[in-house]
């Protein structure tokens, strides 16, 4: 009878010596278990690796913002060689598909409603005479702006074609300002160049914040968190062990998005990959902190999922400049964007990828992102630990 007691006491002292020296050995145990959860759940795995690729393909192919072959009604009141030359200039560009419209100017609205044209060009009766005698010639464009985005493109294309027309007539028509825009970093204004960095910000936020908050809340729901808490593991070790697999997953996804972006969509990568990954770490930390924070508030996985969506994914999409430019937001919303980590991360990804920026050019977003990361991490780790040690 004395034997087993002796044996147990001995393992007891051996154990306490073991984890005093290497508290770190508890972290791999938690991380390995968390990794198994991910591997055993093919749905999560599919979401993690298929979703970014599908989104990338959708954004890259479907969300092509360029507008081509716009139907243009030409109301030519002049009917002179000069006015026909102008119409010809539009026909020659790949943006427009002009046709003559003989009806009254008031009929243009009908054309728009029937979707037969999206823009109308009205050439005045004395076009040829004005062109010869006056410095400026009044022309009118009527644009269907029910699709505001497309309308903006059409407007700028019209200006571009007119500029070409002026140029083709040589010095005959002096233009006060000869504006030639040079579009840098994305000369063809490809949408994919714009969405690949945005998708990085989105997916990293989703994995790091949403998946971790759900994973932690699940353990609270099933009671396994309590079982871990009666063991000598410290809250900080739980945090590190649980988030470690998601950090690895996040980086694997980031690399996958970069690979698809560069190989399939030919998005340039002009800067340093090492720098981008380094700064990505900062961003991932802010996202993980948000996930931890959510898990301290949510009691069920569903609540965690909803909260993570509203608190992390929505701001990342709407308030980071990913889709809507921050400069065109109302002042109050602009103020809110300062606490959205994706705002800084987008500047960093776009800077490194498209412009080849180095760390010296990215000091401001990096400092802001680091500050947000430090604050969020401190607050959420403290909240998480206190929440567990009641």
């Amino acid at each position, binding site marked *: *009878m004395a034997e*087993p*007691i002796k044996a*147990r006491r001995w*393992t*007891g002292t051996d*154990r*306490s010596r*073991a*984890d005093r020296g*290497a*508290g770190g*050995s*508890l972290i*791999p*145990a*938690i991380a*390995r*278990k968390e990794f*198994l*959860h991910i591997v*055993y*759940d093919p749905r999560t795995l599919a979401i993690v690796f298929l979703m970014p690729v599908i989104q990338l393909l959708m954004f890259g192919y479907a969300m092509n913002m360029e507008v081509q072959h716009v139907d243009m009604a030409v109301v030519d009141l002049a009917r002179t060689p000069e006015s026909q030359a102008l119409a010809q200039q539009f026909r020659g560009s790949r943006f427009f598909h002009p046709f003559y419209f003989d009806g009254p100017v008031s009929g243009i609205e009908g054309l728009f409603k029937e979707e037969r044209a999206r823009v109308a060009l009205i050439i005045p009766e004395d076009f040829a005479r004005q062109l010869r005698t006056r410095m400026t010639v009044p022309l009118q464009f009527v644009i269907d702006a029910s699709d505001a985005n497309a309308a903006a493109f059409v407007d700028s294309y019209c200006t571009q074609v007119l500029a070409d027309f002026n140029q083709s007539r040589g010095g005959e028509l002096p233009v006060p300002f000869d504006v030639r825009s040079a579009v840098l970093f994305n000369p063809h204004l490809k949408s994919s160049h714009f969405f690949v960095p945005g998708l990085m910000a989105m997916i990293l936020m989703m994995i790091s914040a949403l998946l971790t908050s759900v994973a932690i809340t699940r353990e609270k729901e*099933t*009671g*396994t968190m*309590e*079982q*871990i*808490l*009666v*063991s*000598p*593991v410290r809250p900080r070790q739980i945090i590190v062990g649980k988030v470690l697999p998601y950090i690895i997953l996040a980086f694997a996804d980031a690399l996958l998005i970069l690979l698809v972006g560069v190989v399939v969509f030919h998005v340039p990568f002009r800067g340093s990959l090492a720098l981008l990954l380094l700064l990505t770490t900062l961003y991932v930390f802010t996202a993980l902190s948000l996930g931890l924070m959510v898990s301290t508030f949510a009691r069920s996985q569903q609540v965690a999922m909803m909260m993570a969506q509203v608190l992390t994914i929505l701001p990342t999409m709407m308030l980071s400049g990913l889709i809507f430019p921050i400069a065109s937001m109302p002042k109050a919303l602009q103020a809110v964007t300062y606490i959205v980590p994706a705002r800084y991360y987008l500047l960093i990804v776009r800077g490194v990828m498209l412009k080849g920026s180095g760390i010296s050019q990215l000091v401001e977003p990096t400092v802001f992102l680091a500050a947000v990361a430090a604050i969020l991490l401190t607050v959420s780790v403290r909240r998480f630990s206190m929440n567990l040690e*009641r």
Partner: protein
Amino acid sequence: MNAPVNFSVCTENLTRKFGDFVAVDGVSIAVHAGEIFGFLGPNGAGKTTIIRMLCGLLKPSAGKATVAGFDVYTQSELIKQKIGYMSQKFSLYDDLSVGQNIEFYSGVYGLSAGQIAQKRTDVLVRFGLEAYGSAITKDLPLGFKQRLALGCAMLHGPEILFLDEPTSGVDPVARRGFWKTIYDTAAGGTTVFVTTHYMEEAEYCHRVCIVDRGRIVALDTPSRLKESHGKASIQDVFVNIVRSD
């Protein structure tokens, strides 16, 4: 707090309030090493709250308590090394295999890779789960899950085992086997602190503590409880005390 070392668990006026509700009201007990100490009471009597306080999951509102000679307020990290805990819910990972559950819980107690492999075999053999090492936990019958949960709670050779309604929902045959394991464990010197609402299980305990509405209403050996109340079974004693209260 200078509690005598021979007490595994010692409390003095232990109290826990949730707002205005007093869940545990001035509970004083002293549990000996190697004792099977049964906590009996209707649902909501405060049994789980007491266990949670002793395991360091919940801070007491008032009173004193030591577990394995360590203070629950200040030495909870040391307590955690000495105790095993099995909750009502059998806190296992349903999506992992039986073996992986054992490996994980061995891991959080800081066992080395070699020790973990040994523990895996030991637990599977001892709890009759040899054939289920790679079965997914979700697919196990409840009685098997219960044995696995107990195995996981005992991996690190705890001095004190807290079992919170370990047999709820398990069939009578499995319960009998489970209590045999508890007996063996206690015979090896481990203190077993167990809550239950199965009256016949109370008969298996060395001493029984009946709690109602957060207070101790009776505490003695099963035979002396029956004797002093003039009843044939603990069930009758229980009904007598809780009704007359």
